[in-house]
């Protein structure tokens, strides 16, 4: 009984301390990111029937609701819209024209909840770093890292992401930046501009991978004035709390 009891405590305390040690050191570790990617990759085969079932059910539900045709129409219109935006920018060559890749969110680390998500589309699907990701036509972030079968998207709420934007009503330019806690701010707008609550904000000309004019959100509040520039709080059009699927704008030149 004594030996069994000792063995019990050794195994219990050993595994518990190892678990807590892992929990303490794992957030943000590259090794853990790789291990998660590998686990996801290894489970692709056994999970294939479940994914097929989910897709089949979703297709059936879509068909029953007549939603499929509407979605295809929205996709076609979004594609056409992106091409038109590309044509409007005479200085940009969009190559064969932007296209859209839909991806499911497969991972959203709690430790970086407002910073990044992983999707099940990668290099093989034509995803490249810098490409924009949208939800319901509104920008949610930019592709930051790409693996062969997955990609990481840095969200607009991330504190390390800066996106040049334009206020549509006044054509004033500024830079969008997140606080890392779900809040998003518009920076570098001169204090004398006096933007009004409800004004729309969309992407400005950034790169050939992120077309201008993608809706982002609305001005929802006024912040402090720093060095002649006023901060404005933004409310995003995308619902980052219900981020299950995104569309990556691919096909442009890097």
């Amino acid at each position, binding site marked *: 009984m004594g030996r*069994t009891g000792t*063995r*019990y405590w*050794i*195994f*219990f305390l*050993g*595994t*518990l301390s*190892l*678990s*807590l*040690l*892992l*929990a*303490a050191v*794992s*957030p943000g570790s590259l090794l*853990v990111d790789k*291990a*998660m990617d590998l*686990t*996801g990759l290894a*489970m692709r085969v*056994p*999970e294939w*029937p*479940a*994914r097929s*079932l*989910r897709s089949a*059910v979703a297709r059936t539900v879509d068909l029953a609701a007549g939603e499929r045709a509407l979605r295809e129409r929205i996709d076609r219109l979004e594609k056409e819209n992106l091409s038109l935006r590309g044509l409007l920018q005479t200085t940009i060559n969009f190559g064969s024209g932007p296209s859209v890749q839909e991806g*499911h*969110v497969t*991972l*959203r*680390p*709690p*430790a970086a*909840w407002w910073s990044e998500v992983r999707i099940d589309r990668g290099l093989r699907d034509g995803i490249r770093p810098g490409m924009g990701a949208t939800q319901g036509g509104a920008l949610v972030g930019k592709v930051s890292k790409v693996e062969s079968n997955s990609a990481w998207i840095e969200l607009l709420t991330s504190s390390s992401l800066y996106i040049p934007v334009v206020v549509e009503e006044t054509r004033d330019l500024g830079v969008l930046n997140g606080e890392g806690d779900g809040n998003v701010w518009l920076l570098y707008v001169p204090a004398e501009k006096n933007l009004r609550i409800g004004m729309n904000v969309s992407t400005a000309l950034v790169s050939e991978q992120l077309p201008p004019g993608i809706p982002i959100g609305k001005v929802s509040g006024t912040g402090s004035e720093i060095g002649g520039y006023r901060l404005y709080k933004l409310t995003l059009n995308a619902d980052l709390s219900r981020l*299950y*699927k995104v569309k990556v704008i691919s096909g442009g030149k890097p």
Partner: protein
Amino acid sequence: MAILWFSLLARDLLQVVFSGTAIVPDFTVLALVWVAVFRCEDAALLFIPAFLAGLFWDLRWTALPGVTSSAYVLVVATSAWVWSHLSPGRRGNPTLFFVWAIAAHGLSTFLPALLSGHGSGLSSPLVSQQGMALACVLGLTALFIRHGRIHHD
């Protein structure tokens, strides 16, 4: 021990199917409670499978390795300790088993939320997961009663 790996695979597959719709009940922790209760006198060998099962779940779904595994290890330790200190007559008590299985499921759900510092509140998916878990625990308790009767006969 096969019940543990089967429950882990079943939970993973169901979570893929219900991804974005619902959070599947933690069958693995219920399997761990079941195994730990019946092997309470020699539970030392359960810790490593519990740790590995939790680690797998963390790598696949929670992205915080070590959090679910610590919950699983705690559940095994507590289940085995409590049951080994019960008199043989009370070990087959279905009410005790039911209450402990519900508590263990709650621990495995809310401990990761508390440790990760995110979503510690009662969100609607978490509440519906507890509801589905209640149905599973009732079924498991029925199996526990049946097992006790067969063993008694």
